[in-house]
């Protein structure tokens, strides 16, 4: 008898499963219990379904009580329950009642086709075995050239190819129809013969049973169209668990296009994004460890899904004091913090806020006059007023033009985009941002741009990347925040994107025509009306298809039009959230999805409700990003102090306190110029221009390069380096950026000529650099150094130099 047959044990009506799990004998009071999935449907003889039962405590914590619950079927004659699995006996329907600690839940059970025994399907049954066994990973047979002479498609992107290789290569050896267990496919997997990958599963396991049964049935290929997998549900959808060894079982249910579902808990691959907080075993049991948040992923065939887990100390006493004056953003942030048992930091003082907001909003540090004015203002809404004032300045526009120029990769490029083209492209963007054109309109205008690259500058976008596949990757990353590159060669292992999705998306771009214009530096971008993208498997033309959405009708139209419409549609789940996240990242120093252009199933938002809220706010406001900026800057979340408390000092992802951020390259150079009263010179810009105004990404400047300015060669948000480095410190210490500018700016010289005294000059320097006066100790110590120095000017310049070199200057805090 094969292993799988053993699952079909009959005659056990209802049991109370009492093994193990006695740790919580001192049961607390529970509020309710939940059962997942919400119904059981068994469609054929070997169909089966497991369930998971969750008990909720009043403080939000959950407990897996599946094994200690009592279960009873209203009609025990139609199904049986064994080893945590329901299996069919006869057709019919009834209710399953689950009881735990006085709480009760009912779910319907429907059995149909209890006597049906469909053959094993290669795609639905056998392929998942390779995935579950780890056979088709990149380090094993999924490698480009396979392993030890046997190749499978990576993560199963090519079932037809896999079938061919298993059944047609080495006939009688890889699989032996006369001896289903004897072939290498089974023997290697079960460790019957030496195998580089070792024993993957036991001969008695269900996985082996599936293989053996498939071979014994003649190793058939799927004759008809196999119902396509349309979804995967992972249960429970979320959980808040105690730390240190608490266990939580998972149930995975796959849904197919024909309406059927299937328990694939044993066929999924599981992973955790934070093993130090929660680990997951290969069979889907989560075990908690340290306090924190983890995201548990399950992959079945092409679909990866995940569930968020919060792990909190078991005996933590926590009470969240409700804040007054919260904005809608703060409410959403606090909700998550409450769940995590984290207290947010208090709101920062006025000086800190003024410096932070000025750097973030206009890329400058406040002047002495601005500081005095702000501090003297006693009105309650002075922060809002300041935010509004800063947002009306041209520097605010320049900051966002710079950020969009990075997204749109504005740069000159050898023989494709001339410096003039780059400047015109930049000017186009500048006009759009300055006029506060709705972002959806701007992006639509860009994506459907046709004509000359001088005449209609957004066409440069299609000149900067002429490769169809790379262009489609850029569009997905820039406007949807997704990196779909992996799916070019194989189905994305940690996301939902398959090769079909990838090439379907790329199929919006192959018809872009390009020709030289009358000016040799200019190109004309147009819809050529012909050209297709071919799928590497099968070499067939791929119809354009939106990512995760339908296949539009594109005949006789510029394909880009329908794409642009879809991308900027309020119904698009990605665009608004991505742009909102980019905006959020600018002000908070970390995205809700981090990195902001790497949204994927396995990299979930740290606060999905907040991200959703921001995205909705953006689209509801008529795609006016200024509204979003105003909301963010007015929130207490943005205005929190960077000083952390005991509960939030480890938090870097939930915005419980301000993150200390290094000032980005362009802004830092502008700030250095501003505090030292010196001027910048960049090619193509007049003397005294700001670094944020540089139009062409190819412009080189040692300071900017050292501090991680993006060259805009790459669409990736990671192209902007915000990390501090040794070379940056050395450049500030020894390079000409600081020392020469202090000398050239002659600030100290001027103050000495004005006969100001040392304390006043030192005070001014502190305010210029840090937007605050020196405290008593700082002033005393500095004064002592200056007054004991032989050369007063030299000593004061040294103080200036030291302040600019201090972390407080280089960081926004």
């Amino acid at each position, binding site marked *: 008898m094969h292993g799988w047959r053993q699952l079909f044990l009959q005659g056990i009506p209802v049991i109370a499963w009492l093994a193990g799990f006695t740790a919580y004998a001192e049961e607390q009071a529970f509020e309710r219990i939940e059962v997942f999935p919400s119904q059981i449907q068994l469609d054929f003889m070997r169909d089966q379904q497991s369930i998971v039962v969750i008990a909720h405590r009043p403080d939000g914590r959950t407990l897996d009580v599946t094994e200690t619950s009592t279960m009873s079927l209203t009609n025990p004659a139609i199904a049986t329950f064994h080893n945590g699995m329901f299996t069919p006996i006869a057709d019919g329907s009834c209710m399953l009642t689950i009881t735990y600690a006085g709480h009760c839940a009912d779910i319907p059970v429907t059995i149909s086709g209890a006597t049906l025994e469909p053959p094993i399907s290669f795609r639905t049954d056998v392929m998942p075995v390779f995935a579950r066994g780890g056979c088709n990973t990149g380090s094993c047979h999924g490698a480009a050239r396979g392993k030890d002479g046997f190749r499978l498609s990576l993560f199963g992107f090519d079932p037809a190819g896999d079938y061919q290789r298993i059944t047609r290569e080495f006939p009688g050896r890889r699989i032996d129809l006369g001896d289903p267990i004897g072939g290498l496919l089974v023997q290697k997997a079960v460790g019957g013969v030496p195998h580089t990958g070792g024993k993957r599963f036991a001969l008695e396991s269900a996985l082996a049973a599936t293989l053996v049964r498939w071979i014994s049935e003649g190793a058939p290929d799927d004759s008809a169209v196999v119902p396509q997998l349309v979804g995967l549900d992972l249960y429970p959808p979320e959980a808040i668990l105690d730390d240190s060894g608490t266990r939580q079982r998972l149930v995975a249910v796959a849904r197919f296009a024909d309406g059927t579902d299937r328990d694939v808990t044993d066929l999924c691959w599981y992973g955790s994004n934070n093993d130090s907080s929660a680990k997951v075993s290969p069979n889907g049991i989560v075990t908690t460890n340290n306090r924190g948040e983890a995201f548990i992923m399950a992959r079945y065939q092409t679909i990866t899904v995940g569930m968020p887990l919060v792990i909190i100390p078991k005996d933590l006493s926590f009470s969240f004091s409700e804040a007054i004056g919260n904005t809608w953003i703060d409410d959403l942030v606090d909700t998550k913090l409450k769940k995590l048992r984290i207290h947010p930091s208090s709101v920062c003082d006025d000086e800190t806020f003024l410096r932070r907001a000025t750097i973030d909003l206009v890329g400058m540090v406040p002047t002495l006059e601005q500081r005095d004015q702000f501090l003297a203002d006693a009105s309650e809404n002075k922060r809002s007023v300041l935010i509004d004032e800063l947002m009306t300045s041209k520097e605010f526009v320049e900051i966002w033009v710079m950020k969009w120029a990075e997204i749109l990769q504005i740069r000159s490029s050898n023989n494709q985009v*001339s410096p003039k083209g780059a400047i015109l492209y930049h000017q186009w963007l500048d006009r759009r941002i300055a006029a506060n054109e709705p972002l959806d309109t701007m992006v639509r205008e860009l994506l459907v741009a*046709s004509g000359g690259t*001088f005449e209609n500058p957004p066409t440069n976008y299609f000149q900067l990347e002429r490769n169809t596949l790379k262009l489609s990757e850029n569009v997905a990353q820039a406007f949807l925040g997704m990196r779909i590159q992996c799916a070019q060669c194989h189905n994305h292992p940690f996301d939902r994107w398959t090769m079909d999705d990838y090439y379907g998306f790329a199929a919006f771009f192959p018809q872009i025509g390009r*020709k030289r214009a009358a000016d*040799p*530096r200019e190109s004309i971008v147009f819809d050529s009306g012909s050209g297709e993208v071919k799928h590497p498997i099968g070499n067939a033309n791929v119809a354009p298809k939106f990512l995760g959405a339908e296949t539009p009708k594109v005949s006789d139209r510029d394909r880009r039009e329908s794409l642009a419409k879809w991308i900027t549609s309020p119904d698009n789940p990605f665009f608004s959230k991505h742009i909102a996240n980019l905006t959020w990242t600018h002000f908070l120093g970390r995205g809700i999805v981090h990195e902001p252009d790497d949204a994927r199933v396995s990299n979930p938002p740290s606060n999905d409700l907040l991200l959703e809220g921001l995205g909705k706010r953006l689209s509801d406001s008529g795609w006016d990003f200024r509204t979003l900026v105003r909301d963010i800057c007015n929130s207490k979340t943005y205005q929190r102090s960077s000083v952390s408390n005991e509960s939030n000092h480890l938090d870097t992802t939930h915005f419980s306190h301000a993150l200390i951020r290094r000032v980005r390259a362009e802004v830092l150079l502008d700030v250095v110029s501003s505090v030292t009263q010196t001027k910048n010179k960049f090619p*193509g810009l*007049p003397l005294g221009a700001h670094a944020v105004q540089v139009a062409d990404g190819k412009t080189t400047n040692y300071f900017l390069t050292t501090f991680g300015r993006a060259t805009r060669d790459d669409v990736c948000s990671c192209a902007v380096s915000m990390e501090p480095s040794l070379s940056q410190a050395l450049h500030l210490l020894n390079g000409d950026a600081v020392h020469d500018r202090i000398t050239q700016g002659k600030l100290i010289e001027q103050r000495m000529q004005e006969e100001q005294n040392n304390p006043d000059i030192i005070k001014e320097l502190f305010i210029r650099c840090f937007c605050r006066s020196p405290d008593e100790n700082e002033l005393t110590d500095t004064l002592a150094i200056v007054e004991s120095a032989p050369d007063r000017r030299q000593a004061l310049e040294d103080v200036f130099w030291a302040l600019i070199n201090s972390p407080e200057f280089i960081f926004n805090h």
Partner: protein
Amino acid sequence: MRKWTLNNHSSAFNQKSGFLFLSLSLLLLSSSPLRADPTIDRIIPPGAKQGSDVEIELTGKFLESAEELVFEEGLIQVQHIDSVDGSRVKARISIPPDCRLGAHRLRVRTARGLSELRTFRVGATQQVSEIEPNNEPSKAQNIELEQTISGVITGEDVDCFVVHLLASSRIAAVVDGIRLDQEMFDSHLEIIDSRGFVLGANDDNSLLGQDPMLSIVVKEEGDYTIRLRESAYGGNNGCVYLLHVGTFPIPIVAWPPCGMPGEEVKFEWLGDPAGSFQTRVILPESAGVEGIAEIRPERDGKRSTAPVPVRISSLATVVESEPNDVPDQASHSSIPGAFIGRMDSKNDVDWLRFSASKGTTWRVTAYGRRLGSPIDLVLNAHRDDKKREKITGSDDTDGPDSDMRVLVPDEGSFLVRINDHQRRGGPEFIYRIEAQQVVPHVDLAIPEGRSNTQERLVVTVPQGNRTVAVFNANRTEYSDDVRLEWSDVPQGVLATSLPFLAGSPGGAVLFEASADAPLGTGMARVVVRSAHETNELLGGLRQSTSLVYGNPNQTQYRATISDRLPVAVVSPSPITVHLKAPIIPLVRRGRFDLQVRIERAEGFKGAVKLEFPWKPTGVSALAGVEIPEDISEIGYTINATADAPVRDWQIVVAATPKGAPADKKKGKALQQSDLWVASQPVTLRVAETLIELTLEKSSAEVGQETTILCKVSKPGSFEGNAKCKLMGLPVHVDSQEVALSADVKELIFPVVIGADAAVGKHDNIFCQVLVPLNGEWVIHSMPASQLRIDRPLSGQSQATTSSDDKGSQKLSRREKLRAAQAQSLSKATTKTPEDSTAVPEDDTGGLKNNPNTAPPVSTKDSAK
């Protein structure tokens, strides 16, 4: 005097060979014996007003002895010209009051050369100079309306000019920047009000290309600033401009965009921001090589400073009548003829039907952008039947304009579909289509050489000497020999064309100046005629000259086309060159050393660069051979390919004097010279080979002696013995020369493979055969073969190298196979190569040394 050749075959040059011209002792040399064509980088100011006398300064190189400022049309008078130094020339010029407006072609002639082409602009308004600093509106320079400002945009420079305007008044500004033909200068123009708001801006436009033009009507009285900069904030000292400011109109296109020569036409001028207007204009009788006249329409007494192009043609013209958006509505036009129309609106398409006979070929040419229209014309020809099948199409053959040849597939008519590439339309989107039958035609032009110079596009001939120019003959529907007729060459100069033969892309023309030919410049004319009795006129010169280059890749931005060739007589050259007439042929796949003698004038001791300026079909030569300072004779090697046409050609060689030791101290510039002094033409016969040999493949081991078999595949007919030698042998492989008589059918080369010879396949081993004829050697190179050198096998090696070490090595699979093969062969071929007995043993010195101890693996075996 020492003789020096490129090869071992020294030549006996006839020292007494005559020369047409004067002996060297008569040559009068100036202080520097070298000659270099002068160059002009800048002309300041770049233009002047009609009726003015102005001093202009030209900067460049080699301007020491400037003698003449040559305005090609002769309309502008030069009062005097003075060289300031080698890099500057000052000249005073008079511009007649009725001088033609626009660009005038200009060159400088020095005693030693003629400069490249530049242009000087004549305008109608008063000209003032820019005064810096004027980089900000607050520092803008005050100007008046109806003025032209002459200025320059240096690096990241911005020039501001302020003008006071009354309410509701009009201001127009036009820039001559890149069109001054001095620098790749793309300018950007703005008009801003006193508060800094930009009221209008222009960068590029369809009429002037990179030069901006702008016109606005201001609402309020006040000061208005015109701001000019380089479009990407670039700029340099070469970015000179003329900024015209006034109240003149700036239309961009004319309707109709054409007219007959000399005809008076009522034009509607379109594209001016103030609206269209109409004037009557009498068109010129001719309009240059391209048949496009520049018209400056007037409105309210003010003349446009941006000329509008109008096509001048005698073709009957049909005007479009809408609707003609589908083939069934196609407008009908007879051909040869022209059709004018307009893309009225977005997505407009015009169809046109031409009557034509089946099998005739028509050239359909579209004029759009060339006439100032923003249109990007696409032409498609279709059959005039139910299916409307496409015959051919064209896009962007002449800039954005199109041009196609239609072979009419059906009797009766064909259709032409016309549209804008980007489906745009509007009142200014006018076009003209011309259809003319393709007739035999030949255009003559000197090919433009290196991408960013005008090198050799003019002819400079030294007094008492000779130079050469190489022309391409671009043939249309004509493939036979042509001849050239020259006229208007300068006094004392004789132009002689070498035959322009069928199958050859072009030919050479010799220009010879007598010793007393006066220094000066002439604009020579040439017509191309059939070389046959018909004497049919086929065409003439159509010389394109590139004026401005820029990124990317030094692409041409500005060019001009002329039908006249500047020919200048310059001071004598320090060298003359003599080419000895060959008395033996150059055979196919053969080599010949042209005997060249250089005579240096007294005082000149420099090296000479020798070139073969025009190569007959199938004949090649080294690109340039330098004859050292102390050498006067040389064998200049030329080669023929295996399929070179067998015929007689007229050839010349050209020589360029290089820096003498004395000159080197004066700097690198003095060593430059681009003079081509040509030899007299001689006849070169390209002939069939006199004998052909086939070299067999062979192989041997390192350290062995072997033989290489060579069979006579085409018997020779010559007297005496030819000399055969293996060429291309690798280092440490030696062979010997073998003599060969006409009756021998096979010969064997003894070859010694040295112990250090490189192991492997050597593919380029060939046999060189020198056949005696007329007392000289006709050099043949036979097809190459292969010699394979193997590593010695263990125990069988005769090599003196450390075979013991290798003997202990494990044999590779290939080595094992070879060993087995060698063993079996050694059994089968223990006898010596008896075939060699076929070779007569007399006078084969090389063969006598052929060792009978040759290894068993013979060349015969490997040939099998």
